[in-house]
């Protein structure tokens, strides 16, 4: 006697290949999807409008400090939004000064400065202030002393940076790690309350940062994919079909695991094995 025919199971190593194949195929088929059938996240324009209003409130030729401290793992989620914000500020004639208070942030900032330089942004319009050591202590010192050591290398338009963060017209905080919008509100907004702060963060930080928007300590916040879709405009972000394929694969795994859990079987036998 046997227990009946055993269902053949795919080997664990095949799942990552199937996943990659599905995603690659979806990218190739992307142009064939009729417009409007799939959308990334159904844009929510309210957050984007607040950020645009904050940008509109800037004086002529403003000096904007961009605090680049995202997390390398979640930066892809907000990358298009950050680039759209930098482009909008440049279009408004802003001088951009990029600074980082974390090593991860410095890596991303270096990449973005290279991209801006390749796009034609000269050193008179975009300054790289580099990495400031000391975490929150360094941030507090920067309130009155930012860029002094690079003062000789900076274009004349950035001479105001010698007066620290307080001398800028706005700070755009790109968050994702410990030093993010909350730190800026705690350490900088309390010392320079009139300085407008605008933040872009990945979705996981939304519950932490959203109260500062409601209290008025942040002038604008882009924190979800819906906000980002409205701010960055159509065509930005992940292609909808690729996104759909990835999400369906994940959903299939979740449903399969839950069904096996309910039936009391081997819950994860045909799911991919964690690499050693």
């Amino acid at each position, binding site marked *: 006697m046997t227990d009946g025919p055993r269902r053949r199971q795919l080997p664990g190593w095949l799942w990552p290949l199937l996943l990659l194949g599905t995603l690659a195929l979806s990218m190739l088929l992307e142009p064939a999807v009729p417009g*409007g059938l799939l959308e990334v996240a159904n844009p929510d324009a309210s957050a984007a409008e607040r950020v645009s209003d904050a940008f509109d409130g800037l004086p002529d030729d403003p000096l904007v400090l961009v605090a680049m401290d995202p997390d390398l793992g979640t930066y892809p989620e907000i990358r298009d939004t950050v680039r759209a914000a930098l482009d909008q500020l440049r279009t408004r004639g802003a001088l951009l000064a990029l600074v980082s208070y974390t090593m991860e942030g410095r*890596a991303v900032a270096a990449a973005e400065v290279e991209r801006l330089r390749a796009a034609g942004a000269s050193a008179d319009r975009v300054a790289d202030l580099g990495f400031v050591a*000391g975490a929150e202590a360094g941030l507090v010192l920067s309130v009155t002393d930012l860029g002094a050591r690079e003062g000789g290398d900076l274009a004349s338009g950035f001479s105001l940076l010698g007066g620290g963060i307080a001398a800028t017209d706005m700070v755009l905080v790109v968050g994702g790690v410990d030093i993010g919008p909350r730190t800026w509100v705690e350490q900088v907004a309390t010392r320079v309350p009139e300085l407008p702060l605008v933040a872009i963060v990945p979705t996981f930080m*939304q519950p*932490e940062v959203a109260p500062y928007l409601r209290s008025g300590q942040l002038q604008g916040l882009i924190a979800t994919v819906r906000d980002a879709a409205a701010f960055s405009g159509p065509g930005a972000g992940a292609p909808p079909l690729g996104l759909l394929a990835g999400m369906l694969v994940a959903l299939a795994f979740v*449903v399969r*695991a839950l069904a096996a859990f309910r039936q009391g079987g*081997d819950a994860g036998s045909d799911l*991919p094995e*964690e690499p050693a």
Partner: protein
Amino acid sequence: MPATIVVVIGLLLLVNFVVINPLLAGTTGAVLRLVVLLAAAAALAGGLALVLRHGSDLVRGHGDRLGSAVLLAGMAAMLVAGLYPGSQGAADPVVRWLVAALLAPLIAALFAMLFVLLLGAMRQGMALRSRQMGVMLAAAGVVIALLLPFGGAAGEWMSGVAGWALEVPIGGVFRGLLIGVAIVTAVHAARILLAVEGADD
């Protein structure tokens, strides 16, 4: 003695926060610069320890020799690029290229594996038949379904429900945790400042 130093420094920073006085501001600035120097020294010590550890592994033939060699070569390349005569340090184009063209994409590629690793973790969690894992996966499944990128009124309603889930239940739990942590931190800091506990720590 350590508790006294903590109390004095803490009170100095607190008073400087509410009183505008050049002498006080200068003293606080000096303390903050000391903190920055300490952080830099800690980072330097960490880097040296890493070099010693992997250099030792490489010489003695222990551990992952290839990994140690790649790590030491990477550190050497970054140091040379940042310290060669005439280099602009961290702003040098070579350093920027190393970071932007090699370091950032490599780390991003590692993080891109998170999707597969999460599925692997899910497999292991379910193999343990953990009820908490079941609840977590059910919630994840619902949120993924709600965020599927469909257009039109149905898509709008689905993403609206997902947004509500983020702002109300998840936001409430998260803020409750933050408020709890803040209260405990404030009480602990006050106890240290008042020398109620930890005087000999």
